[in-house]
């Protein structure tokens, strides 16, 4: 398991899961909050990755 994207997605999943369960009591709220957080993690990583693309190091 050496794919950085996959590891980042797994990391984002666990963090989103725990935060959603801590922050919300209702299952629907947990799914919404966790999904948004997970999506935010992935989107931020892709955007930051592209922003860093021109850097030589």
């Amino acid at each position: 398991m050496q794919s950085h994207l996959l590891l980042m997605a797994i990391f984002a999943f666990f963090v989103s899961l725990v935060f959603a369960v801590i922050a919300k009591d209702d299952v629907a709220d947990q799914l919404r909050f966790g999904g948004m957080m997970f999506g935010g993690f992935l989107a931020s990583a892709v955007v930051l990755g592209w922003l860093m693309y021109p850097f030589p190091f």
Partner: protein
Amino acid sequence: MPATAAEETQTGTLFLLCLASWAIPGAGHLWLGRRSKGLIFLVALPLMFAIGVAIRGRLFPFELSDPLVGLAALANLGIGATYFVANALGYGLGDVRAVTYEYGNAFLIVAGLLNMLVVIDAYDLAMGRK
């Protein structure tokens, strides 16, 4: 004013609750009857820690001479009993040559920090703040 016996009992129970919650992720929530939350923490946090170990992350030593290493060790310790089991079995030595080394460290450190948040959440629940 000195604490009453009831207050001391409550303090002792709270301490035990936090200790259990730290040692076994989710134990505090299970204790308080929050079964689904407790089970999610019980599965998710040790699994995250195990993935960190599996991808060659390192359990940092307590080195006061290097503050960042010391802080990482403190975060590692946040996962509770799992930390001592992994140490006793010789896991978590880390392999700095592995391409997943830094990811492994992130998994191990964040699993510990998340468990600290879970302990605080259990404390808040026990105090009736949530």
